[in-house]
């Protein structure tokens, strides 16, 4: 690999730009292909692997190419500088995700409670737009306070983040759905919200709830939709 190629890969990763490194494994010839790779002989395979987020070996005209897929690390945006987020931050880091905590209540969003993490002590309408919520983002609402969680969920629903979760009982969630429906969201859009948040593992403590949340995020990230259905059945 040429140093220039390695630099291009690292620059794309730093800018959260999805790319595929195509390497001819016989000759060592290589190129970096972006998402809109019109004209590249491997454009279809590149698009397919990017969609799956998985690297793979492919053959074309008797030559073998390895496609190394580089998709951005998961950004984990949460509203609520609460107990569960205190447990979620280190777990997210362990998984290679980038945690960001949003809470306008400065008593909660204090650097003492959340050292060394991106902490935004602003209301969601101010805090969220600059965060670049994208399809590599998992979003979680954890405050229990509709004044904070509702506008945050509305923002997440307007973006294509791959996971949206919201804390609260079925009753709380039913009321939340009513409010969001009144705000103009369709049932199909609202079905994207995982609530009660997290896999059902009988979690009780904040740390256990955090584990159930990152487990559900991992499933959303890694399982193909067919696999998800098969496992749910």
């Amino acid at each position, binding site marked *: *690999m*040429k*140093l220039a190629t*390695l*630099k291009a*890969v*690292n620059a794309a*990763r*730093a800018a959260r730009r999805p790319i595929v490194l195509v*390497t001819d*494994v016989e000759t*060592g010839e290589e190129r970096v292909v972006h998402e809109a790779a019109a004209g590249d002989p491997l454009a279809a395979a590149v698009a397919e692997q990017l969609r799956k987020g*998985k*690297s*793979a*070996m492919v053959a074309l005209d008797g030559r073998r190419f*390895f496609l*190394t*897929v*580089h998709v951005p*690390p998961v950004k984990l945006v949460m509203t609520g500088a609460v107990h569960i987020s205190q447990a979620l931050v280190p777990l997210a*880091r362990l998984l*290679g995700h980038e945690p960001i905590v949003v809470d306008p209540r400065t008593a909660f969003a204090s650097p003492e409670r959340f050292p060394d993490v991106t902490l935004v002590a602003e209301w969601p309408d101010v805090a969220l737009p600059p965060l670049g919520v994208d399809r590599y983002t998992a979003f979680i609402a954890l405050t229990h306070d509709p004044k904070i969680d509702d506008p945050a969920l509305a923002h997440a629903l307007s973006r294509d983040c791959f996971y949206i979760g919201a804390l609260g009982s079925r009753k709380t969630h039913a009321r939340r759905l009513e409010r969001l429906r009144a705000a103009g969201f369709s049932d199909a859009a609202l079905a994207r919200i995982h609530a009660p948040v997290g896999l059902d593992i009988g979690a009780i403590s904040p740390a256990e709830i955090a584990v159930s949340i990152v487990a559900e995020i991992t499933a959303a990230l890694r399982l193909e939709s067919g696999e998800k259905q098969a496992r749910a059945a």
Partner: protein
Amino acid sequence: MDLASDTDILARAEAWREAGKGVAIATVVETWGSAPRPVGSSLVIDEDGNFLGSVSGGCVEGAVVTEAVDVIGSGEPRMLEFGVADETAWRVGLSCGGTIRVYVEKVD
């Protein structure tokens, strides 16, 4: 810095190269059966045998690092294949029963 993530592994490869060191990248390109690390996992190695990342969870890293140091010397990319470990012959391999193919190339 989280040295377990691919971002930091590749960033370190760039930093090592910029510091004038010989560097190789080893990548899992194919797997059969039960393999410990998914296709696309990588290991970066410098000329002194320092390494970061993983291609197998520890089973074959030693052999990959040795080969990588050769690749840094020759500049020729190499495809390595590892199957089931043969305990009696002390051959390196995967105790999990899978097979992996690892592509090792120098960073020019």
